[in-house]
């Protein structure tokens, strides 16, 4: 249990998707003009990461990685399908977002109207695919770890986009040099926030 908690906290603060790995920057910059929409996208990211990571974990463990097919038949132990992992992962991400979109539309129109428009955007959010690739690379060992990592990095992304959106709302009343307005200052502020987040690095969990 303690392992899970420390993995969760670590993936939010230390291995933050935005500040440590720059993942999901496109939508992070494009949809952070006000806190409300930012929160909507953030929740959608948490949800999709929390769902796709366990699925991709199972696919990787039982189909894709070297020798993974041996549960089917010991003769397949030499089969290595890992070259297909990018394509399988992205297909899972794209279809999950599509399915989630349809389910939400059918059963919760209220949620759909606030969340729905962001779901198609998420298929090409690098944070989602990045989560799966990091999971594969770091070799998380159990389904639980993969899920916790997915939820944790989703929360980290949510936190990052809420923070920048709040800052940008305030910033619109500030006197920023003209050429820096909008995009330029957002980059610089994200950089400064990244430096602040680096102070979490020394925490031993």
């Amino acid at each position: 249990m303690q392992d899970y908690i420390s993995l969760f906290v670590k993936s939010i603060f230390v291995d933050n998707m935005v500040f440590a790995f720059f993942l999901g920057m496109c939508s992070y910059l494009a949809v952070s003009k006000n806190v409300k929409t930012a929160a909507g996208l953030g929740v959608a990211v948490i949800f999709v990461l929390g769902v796709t990571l366990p699925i991709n974990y199972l696919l990787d463990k039982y189909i894709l990685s070297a020798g993974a097919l041996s549960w089917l038949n010991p003769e397949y132990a030499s089969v290595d399908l890992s070259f297909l992992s990018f394509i399988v992962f992205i297909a899972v991400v794209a279809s999950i977002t599509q399915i989630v979109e349809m389910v939400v539309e059918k059963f919760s129109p209220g949620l759909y109207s606030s969340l729905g428009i962001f779901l198609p955007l998420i298929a090409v959010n690098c944070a989602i695919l990045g989560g799966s690739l990091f999971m594969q690379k770091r070799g998380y060992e159990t389904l639980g770890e993969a899920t916790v990592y997915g939820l944790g990095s989703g929360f980290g992304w949510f936190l990052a986009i809420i923070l920048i959106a709040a800052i940008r709302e305030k910033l619109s009343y500030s006197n920023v040099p003209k050429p820096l307005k909008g995009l330029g200052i957002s980059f610089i502020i994200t950089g400064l926030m990244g430096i602040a987040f680096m102070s979490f690095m020394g925490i031993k969990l």
Partner: protein
Amino acid sequence: MNKDIYRKPLFKANPITVLVLGVCSSLAVTVQLKGAIVMALSVTLVTGFSSMIISMLRNTIPNRIRIIVQLVIVAMFVILIDQFLKAYAYDVSKQLSVYIGLIITNCIIMGRIEAFALGNKPVPSLVDGLANGFGYGMVLVLLAFIRELFGSGTLFGYQIIPQSWYVANGGFYENNGLMILPPMALILVGCIIWIQRSAQKDLQEQ
């Protein structure tokens, strides 16, 4: 062919500094020039060729599965590049690690396919893709040049700042450790945007 297709992406509509596309997967590879150049080349090739293929197929793709078809084509090219790097440039492939896979979700590629390739003939789409990839690569290489030179005192791994300048050897110089840390990449992009928008006033936001 319209010259704007390949002129615009370089400065006026540069994918990173103006359109804010493709920032995601790539800032992390700008610590060293070598990685940045390989990344820039890979993205250029993937953008160009997947634009061309999608443009060839544009009238046959069923609309409902459009996004997935595009992702599959892009992912195919990315896997090809990943496999070739692993076979012929193993050290670079190790350095880029998961970021090669993340080219798939690089917004430039999907952005150019949606905005250009779906409505144009294959050859202009190829040129458009290559030019956008190149415009993106330019910023990447510039960032990597600054970060490697000031962060590690090297370029392509070769020592540029003379050893005798360093404090450790009795000189006055010290590498700027901040440059190799992730946040500095963002701040540098901010500065590049600042410089570009000071020169091109029409890009400034109100």
